[in-house]
Every structure is written in structure tokens, then in C-alpha cells.
């Protein structure tokens, strides 16, 4: 287990280092943030002054050196635009994104697994075909288009739910969450559904494929031969085995949601890190972009870790390989 953790963190550090370096130099190549930050009426002298003030007059490798020096002290740099530590800026937006991501995943799982199992148990029934057709469509349409349609339908035509933004939040342990009030929840539903549709289609497909395969396994037939009730066979013997691929994929998808939230957050004006990233890329706010990427990699690794732990809780066979000593 220790070796496993070391391996994981080693890999994370490597990815973070590679990414940070590439992006640091990559964004430098894109352009000069001052061109965007500065008021166009400012004259050339003032532009140069700003460049100097932000440390952008130095050669790129020197800037990178400063960045590395800061890094050793846990300083990921200060946003050019917001004049706040990049990490703090991201962390302030992170709860919103995480809330969105987890709500989306939750919806996907709560609806997706039962639907997928139904479709897998009775693959030829009309309702199963309907579920699968729906999942193909959900799987196929781009996220932004779905978001748009949701807004059109529920916010504009029906007027049931707000079209965007984050509603009222309540602090829980110092973290603002919005699902505890009706206002907050009503703002959360549409974007969460937007996030959920694709994941749900994925979960349905995975669950269906898993169910269709697992019901033919010997141990399922054996469970029936032992006189177990169908409820127990499906609810324990089949479900627990299906959860293994579903958890694996969902773990990866949670990371993807955090990244893909870029689109959803743009469409729904959800104040999360995805929007921050788009804005920061647009404004070439390099410290924020680099810090975002490093944080995302870190989150990925943490999520993968959690997934692996969940995975070994679900699948005892994995533990042997890990536990060898």
C-alpha cells in the first residue's frame, strides 16, 4: 500500500511538473497578457511599465525560475488580472464546481444504474430498447447543445427553473453549498442535469453491458441453483460485480466532469473553476492557468486514489496484487 501511494504521488508529481512546464511556456508563446489587460488608451510607456510590474519583461526562463522558487514555498503565483494568489482564487471557486460535479454524478448513478440493469436483464423488452435509444442520444449529443436545450425548455418556455447562475448558498464547515436551500437547489438542478446526461448515458451503457455479461456467469447461475431469491441474485450478486467497472469509469469521469464543467459552466454562468479557466486562458492569466492545471492533476490523482480504494473494497481480487509484501 505504501509503495502504491508512493507510485501514485510520484506519477502525480511527474504529470504536474510536465503539465506546468508545458503550459507555462505554451502560454508564454501565445501572447502577452498585457495586450489584453491594459486599457487601450494607455500609451506605450505605460504598457512597458505594466509589463515590468508584472515581471513579464524578464526572459522566460528567468520567469520560470521565479515560478519554481515560488513553488517550493507553495506559492503558485499571483493572478495578473485579479491580484490574488492563483491558488486562493481557484480554491474559492472550487466548491461550486465540486458541488456541480458531484450532484451530476449522483444523478447519473441514481438513475443510471437501475435503468442500465433493467435494460441488461431484459434486453429485448420495448422499455429496454427505449432506455438504450435514449442513452445513445444522450451519449451522442454535445454537452453544450444539451445545456442549451435545457435552458430553452425549463427556464424560458416553462419558466420552472432559473436559467443560470448560482443561487443562495449556505456555509457548511466554511464551504458554501447551495443544495440546502430551495433557491440554491433550483439553480443547481439544470446544470447538474446537464452534467449528468452524458454520464448517465455512460452509466446506463456500462451497467447494461455488465449486467448482460454477468447474468451469464457461472456464479450467478450457481446463486440461483442455491435457491436464492431473484432480488438477492440481482441486488447482491449481479450488482456488486457491476459496480466494479462502473466505479472505475465514474472515477475517471469525475475528473472529466471537473474539466468538462468548462462547457456547462459557460452555458449556465455557473461560477466554478471551469469558467475561471476559460476566462484566464482568454486573458492569458498564466499563473491561474498553471495553478488550475496543477490543481486539476492533483484532484485527478486524489479521485483516482479514492476510486482505487473503493475499487479494492468492491473487488477483493485487486487487494492481493497490491498487498503483496
Amino acid at each position, binding site marked *: 500500500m505504501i509503495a502504491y501511494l508512493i507510485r501514485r504521488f510520484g506519477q502525480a508529481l511527474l504529470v504536474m511538473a510536465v503539465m506546468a512546464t508545458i503550459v507555462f511556456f505554451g502560454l508564454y508563446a501565445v501572447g502577452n497578457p498585457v495586450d489584453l489587460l491594459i486599457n487601450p488608451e494607455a500609451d506605450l510607456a505605460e504598457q512597458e511599465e505594466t509589463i515590468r510590474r508584472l515581471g513579464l519583461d524578464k526572459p522566460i526562463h528567468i520567469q520560470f525560475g521565479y515560478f519554481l522558487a515560488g513553488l517550493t514555498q507553495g506559492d503558485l503565483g499571483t493572478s495578473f488580472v485579479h491580484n490574488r494568489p492563483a491558488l486562493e482564487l481557484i480554491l474559492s471557486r472550487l466548491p461550486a464546481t465540486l458541488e456541480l460535479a458531484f450532484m451530476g454524478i449522483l444523478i447519473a448513478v441514481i438513475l443510471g444504474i437501475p435503468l442500465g440493469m433493467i435494460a441488461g436483464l431484459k434486453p429485448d423488452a420495448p422499455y429496454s430498447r427505449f432506455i438504450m435509444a435514449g442513452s445513445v442520444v444522450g451519449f451522442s449529443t454535445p454537452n453544450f447543445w444539451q445545456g442549451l436545450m435545457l435552458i430553452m425548455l425549463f427556464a424560458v418556455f416553462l419558466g420552472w427553473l432559473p436559467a443560470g447562475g448560482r443561487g443562495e448558498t449556505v456555509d457548511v464547515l466554511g464551504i458554501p453549498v447551495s443544495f440546502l436551500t430551495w433557491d440554491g437547489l433550483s439553480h443547481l438542478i439544470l446544470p447538474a442535469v446537464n452534467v449528468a446526461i452524458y454520464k448517465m448515458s455512460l452509466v446506463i451503457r456500462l451497467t447494461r453491458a455488465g449486467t448482460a455479461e454477468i447474468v451469464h456467469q457461472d456464479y450467478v447461475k450457481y446463486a440461483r441453483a442455491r*435457491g436464492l431469491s431473484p432480488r438477492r441474485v440481482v441486488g447482491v450478486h449481479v450488482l*456488486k460485480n457491476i459496480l*466494479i467497472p462502473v466505479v472505475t469509469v465514474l472515477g475517471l469521469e469525475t475528473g472529466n466532469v471537473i474539466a468538462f464543467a468548462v462547457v456547462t459552466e459557460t452555458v449556465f454562468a455557473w461560477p466554478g473553476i471551469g469558467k475561471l479557466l476559460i476566462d484566464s486562458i482568454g486573458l492569458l492569466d498564466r499563473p491561474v492557468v498553471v495553478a488550475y492545471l496543477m490543481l486539476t492533476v492533483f484532484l485527478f490523482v486524489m479521485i483516482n486514489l479514492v476510486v482505487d480504494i473503493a475499487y479494492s473494497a468492491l473487488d*477483493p*481480487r485487486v487487494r*492481493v496484487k497490491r498487498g503483496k509484501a
Partner: protein
Amino acid sequence: MIAPVLSVRNLVTEFDTRAGTVTAVDGVSLDVGPGEVLGIVGESGSGKTITGFSILGLIDKPGRIAGGEVLLNGQDLRTLPEAAMQKLRGDRIAMIFQDPMMTLNPVLRIDTQMVETIRAHRDVSPARARDMAAEALGLVGIPSPVERLRTYPHEMSGGMRQRVVIAIALMLEPDLIIADEPTTALDVTIQSQILSEMQRLLAARKTALIWITHDLTVVAGLAHRVAVMYAGRIVETGPVDDLLDRPAHPYTQGLISSIPSSVPRGERLVPIKGMTPSLISLPRGCAFAPRCPRASETCHNARPEAEDISEARSLRCFHPLEMAQ
């Protein structure tokens, strides 16, 4: 004669495939008495495994039991509702599967799988069920059964796993155990251990056993009576010594003479020519006719019916071998 525990009459099981309906089990009749071991011998595709599942009523789509009776202690199981069948499986009739790797659910501990079986049939406390499970494990020669209960299937060797499965089968003292090639996947020394345990336990309990195998040599040492299956039909039955020493059906004769140890070293084997027919395109007459050295015109056109050729033996053949005595 003592009333048989299980009596199967004219059992027919069909499968719908793309190429049409396939009769996997075609008019099978057999009896097993208390404490008796019946060996069903056949090559792959002969329908021996399907026969086992048909007795338990575990035939899934696209298959179905198309006719016949399955009498357990005189009661026709085919008329029982599914709920009653479910109560019966694992309790009155237990089954042991071929591959001990695939039989136990890999993600559930041994105790979970044993306790759920007991509690599906007996109204006992979980603690009592655990005690029963541990007792059963001890009975089949598993050392330190209480600790073993907490392990997962993959943590055991193949032989140990098969012992667990046998323990589960014996646990509720069924009237009948159907064992489908339970030692094929095991090494010779382990097979020998399992066979020895089975002999010991069955003799003590008067449990009827149907032992399905492709290996005549195992049957020779274990069974009281033998039924030989070919292409979905039982072609010959009889007491083990009688049948193996004086086979009447050319197929049985062929099987015996295919066994290398049946002839002295250096002598040529006399194999059956040709290959096992596909169930999709069975010949019109006797299914064995194309491979049979004794086949006549009749054999190619008409199906032989089962006939009793002596008190204990029956046969499906137009041209049986002469039996000494």
C-alpha cells in the same frame, strides 16, 4: 425396489437459435435411488450439462423445457410454481459446478455466500447460520473452518474452492446432488482427494448423486450406475461393472476403446471414426450412425427407441454388440 429419489421421464429441452430449434436434451429418462451414484457420461455437446440444469429448472431463454416429467420423491417439479422451485433449489437438490474458479462469486466472502444459502432455506439467526457453515466446512476437510469463512474465493486454491462448493451442497442435507464435472479442472492428486471425500460423505448420508462427466475412468471408480449420452439422448444405461465390461452400444464400446489404458502398451487404439455431430444438423436416424461401424440402412433412416435389455440395463440401438452372457 426402493423408490427412486429422482425419476426423470422423457425430458426434452430445446433451444431456439438462428439456425432453428435445437433439441439439446431429447427424451432423457433416468432414475437415481437414495445413496446411489449415477454417472452421466458424454462428450462435449452431448447434452449432459443441460440435462442437469433442466432437472433444476434453470433453463434460460432462448432455451425451454419442452416436455417430460421430473419427479423428485414422486412430485413433478415441472408443475411447481417458480417460487416453490426456488425454495427447493439448494435445499432438496444441490448442484456442484464444473469450474470452482467461476462458481463462487469473486466479490463476496465465503461466509456471505454460505450464510445467504442457509438463510434462504432455514429460518435461523445469522450467527447460527455461520456456525452451520463452519461445521460444513470442517466436514469436507477444510482446516480451521472458522478462519476460512472470512476469506474470499480467490484466496483459496482450486481444490479448496471445490470443497467449499461441496460443503454448500451438503450443508442442508439435500436428497439429491447434481455434480457437473466437479473434478475436471483439478489435478490428479486433488481430484483423488475430492473423490474420496465425496464417497465418504455420501455413503454416510444416503444422498443420491448424479455425477456428470466426460471421463469414463472417474465414473468407473465412483458410480454405481452409468448412463451414456450421445447427441442429447441416453444411448445406454446400466450398472457400472456390467456396462463397462460388456458394453452393448457401439458408441460405449468406442469410448472405452479410445481410452489409452484400455489396451496394452504398444498396441494401437481403436478410436471411433469421424467427429461429434453438431446438434443443429443431426442425422435423420440414429445420431451415431455416421460414425458407427455396425450401421445399416435402418440406422440411417429410423431412430432407435430405448429398450430394456435386462433387468438393470436399457439401450437405444438396432444392432447392439453381443453381450457375453
